[in-house]
């Protein structure tokens, strides 16, 4: 554990204990409905201030022997108490489901779509994934929180993928302070779903050059391709989606120069290990994306597995998944 402050360490320990408890209480399930068993409620910081207010008013009312101040104090106290129920009601009954596994490239923000169904109005829900494993810095731990101020059917949550692989979806933290911000009702929901982190596409093929000449033919097709700004009429198929996601204002398309009857090609990942393997995988990923974009058939050869040639998004997904698992 490098350079962790005491606070972070404590938080990790706390999260470990909490996860153990939560795993027993709510093991991952396809569909989770928030019921009493899963909801925690504690006062917020403002709630504690409110308690202080009530105490002060009680002292004031008692010292002045003033029934009206006491009345107001009790009114605030009953509002405070009833808020427990209101906060609970606002969050209970919400059903969460994640139908599709999220996917994305390492180092990018991966978005997972969570389906919500509800029988009543849930307002002001905050949702985020709890990923305490990423200990690189404190910011990475807390994923961006999504606020659903109105009832919604889906929520798009962000995940941080740092290393390729297949991971179980982390717990979703749903919190709500509605209606008066005095109590926080929250729940950690584990959904039985995965998310994929694919290797980052990377055109650096230095690893391969030194290794084999197998890919030299591939290199030629690469050379016949340039990037240029999108103009009206360009095929959407040639859009560089990755760039678009980064910079939606300036779409970029690939100008493909190779001929339509290009040979069905193979993407090969040789037997490697460590950093070299990672680089090879990144390059393979880049190749796969390009091939899919060009519309040609392609296959994937891994040391342990060969995927026959085909094309289409499903095939691409399958290939990328194998890369992630490799």
């Amino acid at each position, binding site marked *: 554990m490098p350079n962790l402050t005491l606070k972070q360490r404590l938080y990790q320990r706390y999260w470990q204990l909490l996860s153990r408890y939560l795993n027993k209480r709510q093991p991952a399930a396809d569909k989770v409905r928030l019921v009493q068993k899963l909801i925690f409620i504690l006062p917020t910081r*403002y709630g504690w*201030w*409110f308690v202080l*207010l009530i105490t*002060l*008013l009680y*002292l*004031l*009312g*008692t*010292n*002045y*022997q*003033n*029934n*009206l*101040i*006491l*009345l*107001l*104090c*009790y*009114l*605030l*106290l*009953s*509002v405070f*108490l*009833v808020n427990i*129920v*209101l906060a609970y*009601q606002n969050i209970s009954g919400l059903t969460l489901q994640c139908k599709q596994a999220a996917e994305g490239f390492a180092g990018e923000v991966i978005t997972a779509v969570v389906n919500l*169904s509800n029988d009543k*109005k849930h*307002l*002001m829900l905050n949702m985020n994934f709890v990923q305490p494993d990423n200990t690189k810095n404190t910011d990475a731990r807390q994923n961006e929180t999504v606020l659903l*101020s*109105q009832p919604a059917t889906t929520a798009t949550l962000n995940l941080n993928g740092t290393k390729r692989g297949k991971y179980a979806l982390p717990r979703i933290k749903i919190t709500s*302070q*509605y*209606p*008066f*911000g005095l109590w926080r009702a929250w729940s950690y929901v584990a959904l039985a779903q995965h998310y994929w982190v694919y290797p980052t596409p990377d055109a650096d093929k230095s690893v391969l050059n030194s290794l084999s000449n197998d890919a030299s033919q591939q290199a030629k097709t690469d050379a016949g391709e340039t990037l240029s700004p999108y103009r009206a009429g360009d095929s959407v198929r040639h859009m560089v989606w990755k760039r678009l996601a980064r910079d939606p204002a300036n779409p970029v398309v690939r100008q493909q120069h190779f001929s339509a009857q290009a040979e069905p090609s193979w993407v090969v990942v040789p037997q490697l290990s460590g950093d070299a393997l990672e680089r090879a995988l990144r390059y393979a990923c880049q190749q796969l994306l390009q091939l899919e974009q060009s519309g040609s058939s392609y296959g994937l050869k891994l040391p342990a597995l060969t995927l026959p040639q085909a094309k289409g998004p499903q095939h691409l997904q399958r290939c990328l998944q194998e890369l992630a698992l490799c």
Partner: protein
Amino acid sequence: MLTQQKLKQKNLLLSWAAIQFSLLLLLQQAFAGWVIAIFALLLLYRLLSVFKAKAAISLKLVNLLAGIIAITFFLQLQQAGVLHFMLQILLLAATARLLALQHLYEARQLVWVHYFLIACCFILHQDMLIAVFILLVFAVNLYSHYRLFSPSVSQVNWLQTGRSILIILPLWLAMFLLFPRLPPFWQIPNANIASTGLSDTLDPGSIEQLVQDDSLAFRVEFDGALPPRQQLYWRARLYEDFDGRRWQVNALRKNASRQRAADTTADSSLSYRIIAEASQQTGLFALATPVTSSSNVFISPSGLLSSNKPVSQRLSYQVSSSLTPVVLVSEQEQQLNLRTAPGNPQTQQFAYQLKQQYPQSHELVQALAEHFRQQAFYYSLTPPPLGRNSIDAFLFDSRIGFCSHYASASAVILRHAGIAARVVGGYQGGNWHPQQGYLAVRQREAHAWVEYLHNGVWQPFDPTAAVAPERILNSLDSALPEDQRALLDPGWRQLALLQNVRQQLMHLDYYWSVWVLGFDDTSQRQLWRNLYRHLPVIGYSVAALFVLVMLLLLYFRVRQNRTDNTPEATKQLYRYLGKMLAAKPPSLPVSAFLLQCAKRYPAHDIYLKQLTELYEQALYKEDTEALNQLKQLLKCHKAELGRLRRAIKNA
């Protein structure tokens, strides 16, 4: 969306400004004029900036401004008192926060301080109407608090609000009634507000001013029947020092009020409860000789009641009095009340004559009363100004005076005649409300009379009774001539309708002060005792209610089950397509009918087929997912449904 966000903010800002204006209005008693002016200016500036959609002032500037103002407040601390200083600082904090408010989350502190200030208003105001107003301000603040944590465009969910109120109300009342009441923990600063009612000095003109004040002084409930009016002399002050012109309370009395008299030998024939209005004075009221009292007030040896601190809010206390005159406390007291002041030679002369004629003191008093009755003395609210020898001028020259003139003159005559005498200030009579069962004593019932020493007791003597017996037997109004009555009643008060409304409000206010303000640990203990006594009854009724509710629930459940075995999917279809399905022959299944429709109206073919498929899946496969989709489909395509309905209608 953005404009709505802004609009909401504007509304919120306006409501907070309104809250602060009302707080300023409610707390104005506690603030000096220039303080009010500062706050009003700050708030007006804020309002202007809201309307002109200007940005809030920077925090730095506001802090600087608030700091300067806070220092000026602090410099005036001596003058304002600690309580007022606290209120000023709190309101300043709220106003400054409002001035610099930029983000909604910053408003949380603002709302918090508002809650506290609203509660502080109750220190100064306990009238029912004002209390209702304060609660209204509280409700606005609560709403703005809700707005801080709710979506910007949502409407208030009235159903939920109603349900919450139904829970809150009993909880609130139960807490108020049953939560233990504690004695004050420590001494707290009081508001320094000008006191009302009788003062420590009695000028010839002071009571005339007081009786023009129509406000309530105190209210009395008698445990038994109402005593006759002639006995309703509420003693409040003893004036024993006379300087030739004005009477003053002796310094001895002011200090000696703390000791409780433990005279239990006298029988207490009259028991009553007094609810005194806030007067900012310690002096309270009792009839004749008070024997016992509740623990929050003290009985001094001279028979006066006082509380241990100035009455800054309505105070309720129980007294039992014996209707016998007050006993002489000490030799010193007698000496004190024999002192005479120089001047008024004619009066002295008159006193000596009387003394020679009537050596017995009560004979002399009788003669004096007879003198007032026989000679041409007049009772008036507007007596002419008197010269340096005021008693002489009154007795032998103008002969027009108010109760204080008569009392003062009588006491001086008695002292010159060698009889210890003093002037008593207080109230006489009161307005009896038989339906509500209380006596309302207002400032206009203020009165002054005389007590003289006879056989070791202080005999009361009211010279006004000799001059204007109607004043004692009836009321002040009947004792005064027509033109002077108008002085007591400004024009609008004479309208019968308004008078009536005012009366009703006063009664409501009475119940308010008895049940809400007067609810103390004694009443609480009483309540607990009653609860305990009726515990079995309460328990049974709660159990019975519970059983009844359960039975009702069971009944409805059974009925629902019996009548309602149509599947959910069918219900949903009927809910949205009821009119269309009404045309369906009973022999035809729903899905077959829908398919027929699809054929007949090709424009809606896809939609109807979709519906049919989902419906069949939901019905026969019992697929909940399909059911949900069906619901969704029905819900989201209302426009299409409408078109379909119209098509059927036109066909």
